[in-house]
């Protein structure tokens, strides 16, 4: 690690911090329906969408109606995406003549992309036709991210509004997020990526004869347009199997830097949007700072681990599963970004990271994807912890906790705890079942503790809607396709529905003005307390699991043992 690497890291943080109020402020206008500089050039798309779908944009929904329309939208999406993959053989733009995808893989992939997970049991370049990638997977990359934004905006309204039963209109929030936030960013980013060498073409795969006279088939496709939204929407599903390590998906160090930045861009900006709408801008920055602090600490730990001498192989900073143009630093940096946000794109093979680096990737996900996290999902995830922190602080001084002028009572806390525990329980139960199921164990590529890590990683990644993998695990089997589809579904909607319930219940509350006993949420003290709650919940839940995998592996590495 040299000076250039450190400067690049600082540049990343400076750019992220500078872009947060810019994009965050714009998103306030977009979601509040105020005029902004995008209204003119893009307004027609929004109006066309409402007309086409018969949506009344002025209509407001209760939380139940909001949640119902969200669920129906996503279930229709799952059905469409599953069927589309199974019949791709009969559809155009399939130059390689790829056959229909098996039902269980298609279902897994559909749930995966609808839930913003982008777990991939399949290999893109030998499974999905150009049309399938464009019309189903890339489209879900947009709308699943927009769904995340809609949920967090609904929650924001719930906190900002007083004595109201309504929290907004799901169709409107989702459409605005897609049309005004994701689409313009994706258009710009696509062109930058192509300029760096990412492919964007409808030509069929190209057969060449190499310099040494061997045959090589070079896969192509409309990749850049999909990769742009895959990063911006924190989806992470690669056009090609090896994801952002593939030279056609992430051609240069610059494209790599911008891909990392684009993962954090919207989740970071949403903290500003949230603070502005709830009239607690400083609180928004406290949340941003907590996320940034956790990110810097975990990334540093991961780097230290990766640069530690490995006595088994005799090197520090081992290049296994890494690309030369990125080197060790940018591979570890990317792994930390992608697992902090619920992106799941990878530019290095996480399975071949040093044991503790791989462990930190898992821990990032286990904390609930709240270190910037997924688009929308990261912020509503961290707000659950904020409510828990406020509640605990209230208990400590023995009074009803208040948060931004709203009393927090039993109905909200029940939902908060449900949303925090559901993904955790799913990870542990799923892993537990798998390690005693012979079919599940036969998919392992590595022995010993690393085999256990492969399974733990898979369930963590699915429940946290991340999508990255210790890819040695052969997950394209009926068992994993169905199990992980279920886990992804629970990990997404067992959080979203309670969050919307909290939104509805808070919207209904009267305003209670802050008093001398109100715990201030825009202080450093609150930030520290929030970090404490996040780490205690995450560590207590997952330390035993991590001990059996990455930590044992690390101890074996120190002693120079192999398995």
């Amino acid at each position: 690690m040299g000076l250039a690497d450190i400067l690049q890291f600082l540049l990343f943080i400076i750019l992220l911090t500078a872009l947060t109020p810019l994009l965050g402020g714009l998103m306030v206008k977009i979601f509040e329906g105020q005029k902004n500089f995008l209204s003119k050039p893009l307004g027609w798309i929004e109006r066309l969408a409402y007309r086409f779908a018969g949506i009344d944009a002025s209509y407001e929904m209760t939380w139940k109606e909001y949640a119902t329309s969200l669920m129906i939208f996503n279930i229709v999406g799952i059905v469409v995406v599953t069927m589309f993959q199974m019949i791709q053989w009969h559809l155009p733009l399939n130059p390689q003549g790829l056959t229909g995808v098996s039902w269980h893989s298609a279902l897994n992939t559909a749930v995966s992309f609808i839930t913003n997970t982008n777990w991939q049991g399949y290999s893109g370049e030998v499974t999905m036709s150009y049309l399938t990638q464009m019309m189903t997977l890339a489209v879900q990359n947009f709308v699943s991210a927009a769904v995340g934004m809609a949920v967090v905006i609904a929650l924001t309204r719930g906190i900002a509004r007083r004595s109201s039963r309504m929290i907004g209109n799901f169709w409107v929030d989702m459409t605005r997020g897609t049309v005004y936030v994701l689409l313009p960013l994706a258009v710009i980013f696509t062109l930058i990526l192509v300029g760096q060498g990412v492919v964007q073409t409808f030509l069929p795969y190209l057969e060449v004869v190499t310099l040494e006279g061997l045959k090589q088939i070079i896969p192509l496709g409309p990749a850049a347009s999909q990769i742009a939204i895959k990063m911006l929407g924190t989806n992470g599903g690669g056009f090609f199997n090896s994801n952002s390590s593939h030279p056609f998906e992430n051609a240069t160090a610059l494209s790599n830097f911008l891909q990392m930045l684009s993962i954090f861009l919207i989740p970071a900006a949403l903290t500003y949007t949230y603070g502005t709408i709830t009239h607690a801008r400083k609180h928004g920055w406290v949340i941003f700072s907590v996320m940034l602090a956790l990110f810097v600490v975990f990334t540093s730990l991961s780097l230290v681990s990766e640069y530690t001498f490995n006595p088994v192989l005799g090197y520090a900073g081992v290049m296994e599963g890494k690309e030369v143009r990125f080197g060790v630093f940018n591979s570890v940096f990317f792994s930390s970004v992608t697992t902090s946000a619920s992106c799941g794109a990878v530019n290095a093979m996480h399975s071949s990271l040093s044991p503790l680096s791989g462990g930190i990737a898992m821990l990032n996900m286990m904390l609930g994807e709240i270190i910037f996290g997924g688009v929308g999902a990261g912020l509503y995830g961290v707000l659950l912890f904020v409510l828990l922190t406020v509640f605990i602080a209230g208990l400590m001084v023995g009074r009803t906790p208040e948060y931004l002028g709203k009393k927090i009572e039993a109905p909200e806390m029940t939902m908060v705890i449900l949303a925090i525990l559901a993904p955790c329980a799913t990870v542990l139960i799923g892993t537990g079942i798998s390690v005693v199921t012979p079919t599940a164990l036969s998919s392992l590529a590595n022995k010993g503790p690393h085999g256990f890590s492969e399974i733990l990683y898979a369930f963590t990644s699915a429940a946290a809607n991340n999508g990255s993998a210790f890819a040695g695990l052969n997950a394209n089997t009926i068992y994993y396709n169905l199990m992980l589809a279920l886990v992804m579904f629970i990990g997404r909607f067992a959080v979203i529905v309670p969050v919307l319930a909290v939104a509805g219940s808070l919207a209904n509350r009267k305003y209670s003005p802050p008093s001398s006993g109100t715990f201030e949420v825009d202080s450093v003290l609150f930030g520290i307390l929030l970090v404490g709650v996040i780490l205690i919940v995450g560590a207590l839940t997952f330390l035993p699991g991590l001990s059996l995998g990455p930590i044992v592996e690390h101890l074996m590495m120190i002693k120079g043992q192999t398995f």
Partner: protein
Amino acid sequence: MKHLLAAIRINIFFMIFLGLGYPLVMTVISNGLFQDKADGSIISMDGKAMGSSLIGQKFEKAEYFWPRPSAIDYNPLPSGGSNLSLQSENLKRVVEERKRRLTAAHPESGEPPQDLLFTSASGLDPHISPAAARYQILRVAKARLLDPLKVTALVERHIEARQWGGFGEPTVNVLKLNIALDGMQEVK
């Protein structure tokens, strides 16, 4: 029921608008601006495509610079890495074997740089480190009966610095270097 209808219709709308319109428009603009890159940075010789400057190729002959080992043997369908744990017995064994072979082929070059010992993430890494290129100079020069100084000069010319002076790592593109190497001898 009202919501089901809206859900179906808005799904259709986005599938047409974002699923067809967006990638088509992006392809047209990309082709206008960066046609060569959009189509895969293909390198052609005498009108025949012989590879992409971004996709690594397999080289085994003594007169060429060798790329990194590949878990997929440079067959891009599909791309991927070994996914082996660093503590795996398998990895240790293959790395020792690679080290033995490299040392035998480069008796005067010392320890092989580690990027030549470990497979890449994509299996298609088009680059090696400058150290890995320098490591192979003597062997290549010998196989081609060339002056090692000339090969050294060629290698140094092919080192690509960190992008914009700071991003990423210095690299050498193996395919471009090998093409230049062939070119050098034709002139001679």
